[in-house]
């Protein structure tokens, strides 16, 4: 079959247009742009788990480098240790729970909250059924291990109240989080209050003799990025770069969940099966919520109520929240009344 010359011309024109269009799309697709300004050094204190997912992804994918940040990560077993290192001036930014941050501010620490990078329901009690524990009321007289000074203590205290128990009904034992799973497995304690992924590790270790339940009672807790005031005063520009890099991580989580999980499994040395079971609990998003402020005030009030602090006045946490970084990158993620 022979095509008329006119049709051939039209066909060639259409093919040319397609080629040009494809080439344009190919050329104009989003390319990682190399940062052309001065590169800033930044040290982060993180806890390697899903909680720090956005930070792990940004580090793995080079988002920090793309934003002109030469990031060094220090690893801690829990947020309180990172906060202490931050206050000691060893790192620039720490990550910790809202309660720990609130308590430190209540105690007069010079901290500024930059953003929450995760929130959810991660604190669980794991108990041994062979010790006769199957429900809250069975905890009476039992040894409950937890890392004192962390959010576990706050949630346990409130959960005990909700279940008509008091701290005096149980024997609280301080166990550093790295040793807490071993403590319950050895029988040094009858139950533990831990955060993910230690709860999963403990349950797997105890096997059939394990029972677990949430101690949060629907109240979310936030995983926050905090720094000292001087970082904002002297190196404000890096805050925006940091938040922008984390926003890229958030985009990756939204667009390619499987890839995000793969990175977190690799960086936090987790099992994929664990992440598959617990992924729904996490909310890997940047935010500054009104509820976060209320949660921090709640933690501060609890601290004051427990009389562990000389300060009896809950501070105005709005004064320690720096919204400028997140507002510049993702303003819709701010729900704090400001």
């Amino acid at each position, binding site marked *: 079959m022979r095509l008329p010359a006119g049709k051939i011309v039209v066909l060639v024109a259409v093919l040319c247009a397609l080629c040009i269009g494809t080439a344009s799309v190919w050329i104009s697709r989003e390319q990682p742009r190399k940062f052309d300004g001065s590169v800033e050094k930044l040290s982060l204190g993180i806890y390697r788990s899903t909680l720090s997912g956005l930070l792990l992804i940004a580090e793995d994918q080079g988002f920090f480098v793309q934003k002109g940040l030469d990031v060094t990560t220090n690893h801690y077993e829990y947020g309180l240790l990172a906060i202490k290192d931050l206050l000691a001036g060893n790192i620039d930014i720490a990550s910790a729970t809202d309660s720990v941050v609130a308590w430190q501010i209540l105690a007069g620490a010079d901290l500024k909250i930059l953003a929450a990078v995760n929130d959810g329901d991660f604190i669980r009690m794991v108990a041994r059924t062979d010790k006769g524990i199957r429900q809250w009321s069975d905890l009476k007289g039992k040894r409950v291990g937890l890392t004192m000074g962390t959010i576990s203590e706050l949630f346990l205290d409130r959960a005990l109240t909700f279940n008509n128990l008091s701290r005096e009904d149980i024997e609280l034992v301080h166990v550093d989080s790295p040793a807490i799973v071993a403590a319950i497995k050895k029988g040094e304690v009858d139950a533990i209050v831990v955060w993910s992924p230690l709860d999963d590790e403990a349950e797997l270790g105890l096997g059939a003799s394990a029972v677990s339940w949430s101690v949060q009672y629907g109240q979310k807790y936030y995983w926050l990025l905090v720094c000292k005031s001087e970082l904002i005063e002297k190196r404000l520009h890096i805050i925006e770069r940091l938040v922008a890099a984390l926003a890229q991580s958030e985009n990756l989580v939204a667009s390619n969940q499987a890839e995000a999980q793969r990175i977190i499994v690799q960086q936090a040395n987790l099992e994929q099966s664990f992440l598959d079971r617990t992924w729904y609990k996490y909310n890997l998003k940047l935010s500054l919520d009104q509820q976060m402020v*209320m949660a921090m005030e709640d933690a501060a*009030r609890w601290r004051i109520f427990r009389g562990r602090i000389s300060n009896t006045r*809950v501070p*105005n946490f*709005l004064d320690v929240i720096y919204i400028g970084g997140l507002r510049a990158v993702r303003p819709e993620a701010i729900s704090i*009344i400001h």
Partner: protein
Amino acid sequence: MSIRYRLLISSAMCLALVLGVGWLVVVQFNSLEEELDRSMANSAIVRNVFNLKILADEYSEYNEERPLAQWKITWDTMRSLLLNSAKRNSQSSEVVNRLIEDHRDTNSAFSHLVGLHGKDSTAPDGSPMHKELEEKLKALLSVKLQSMVADASRLEKTSQAEMAHSHKVTDLATIAFVIVMALITVGSAALMYTLVLRPLNKLSEGADVVGAGNLDHRVDVAGPGELGDLAAAFNRMAANLKKSYEEMEAEVIHRKQAEKALAKQAEELARSNRDLEQFAYVASHDLQEPLRNVTNCVQLLEKRYKHQVGSDVVKLADLAVDSCARMKDLMDDLLEFSRVGTRCNPFEPCDCEQVLTRALANLRSTIRESGAVITHDPLPTLNADATQLSQLFQNLVSNGIKFRGKEPPQVHISAEENEHEWLFSVRDNGIGIDPQYKDRIFAVFQRLHLQSEYPGTGIGLAIAKKIVERHGGQIRVKPNHDGGSTFCFTIPTGAADNVH
């Protein structure tokens, strides 16, 4: 009206319609956008009222700085929202005014509550008066905020209803736009079909019919306009075409008749030629015997009665014998001439040099007696009747010898190959031929000289011409610059068989 104007008018109408409906759609979309903005602003009012309620509760409960600060922020935001709402919600001005009033009252009550917890409070903290005052302020604040929630919700519902209505109108306008576009598309297609495609189809069909040979067909494209003109032009073209065709047909018939007549004449002529040749042959052949008898009788009479009759009778008898001899020569030549057409051989490849040698052998005594010098160039081999070709050479060479001048005769034969033929030249140094007789010399029994000067019947060149023509060639004579003549004849290289 021409198609151009019709299309212009319809396009202008379509454009006006599209612009009109499009403008309506744009206006509706703007209205919808305004409704959306108003709805969002009213939603923000609702949200802020709830925030005020929560913050008031928080402050009442904990007496802390943060809810106080956020109350102020939220209250200021509310004031801006309500002022804007008063401008936008003219139909719900009563509700908005009530909201503004309640908003002012809530701030008053909240300020009192804050003042109650302040250092300058007139009622000491923990006193019954403080407690009673706090309870009353909380109740007032709660009632006012509850009223605001109800009004804000009402306002939001109103704006949502208006937005729904606006949405509906926008949808209708969009559908109308789509329908108008569809109608315009269909109308344009129909217009194009009626004004252009259908007449074009008719023209196309008409062209096919006319092209197939029906020149009486006419296209019926009614109405004025470019296509009407085109149809009229097409019909004129068909009429002209028919006229031309008829003229051409008549010409063809005329030519065919002429060709037939010509062929008939040619046939007649050929038959006449054949009859003539046959007649010449029969006459020359069959008259030989009586002529011989007449000659013999006259000679016998002269011999027997030579001495009985006078010298006059003898002279007459001699004259009769000479005339018979002359008549016999004429008859022999005529017979030979007629044999060129009737007694001929098929064309075969023959070497012209051998043919010439044979001819010269026939002329050996003539050449010797005259002292003639016969020369030739290399001659070709070609398809021809060798006998006739030999006779041709013989006639032309003997002609050159016979009509010699004072010089000993010299005859030179040459040949050159042209595109489709061989050109032979027989050049002599004889007396030459006056150019005015160049055609006459090839006629039968035509002579330019007296018998006494150059004996002969005058048939030689006629035979030569007939032989050349039988081979499909031509013969002519031309004078030489230095005296004498040159006879040129052509023999086609490949067409001799066809001619034969």
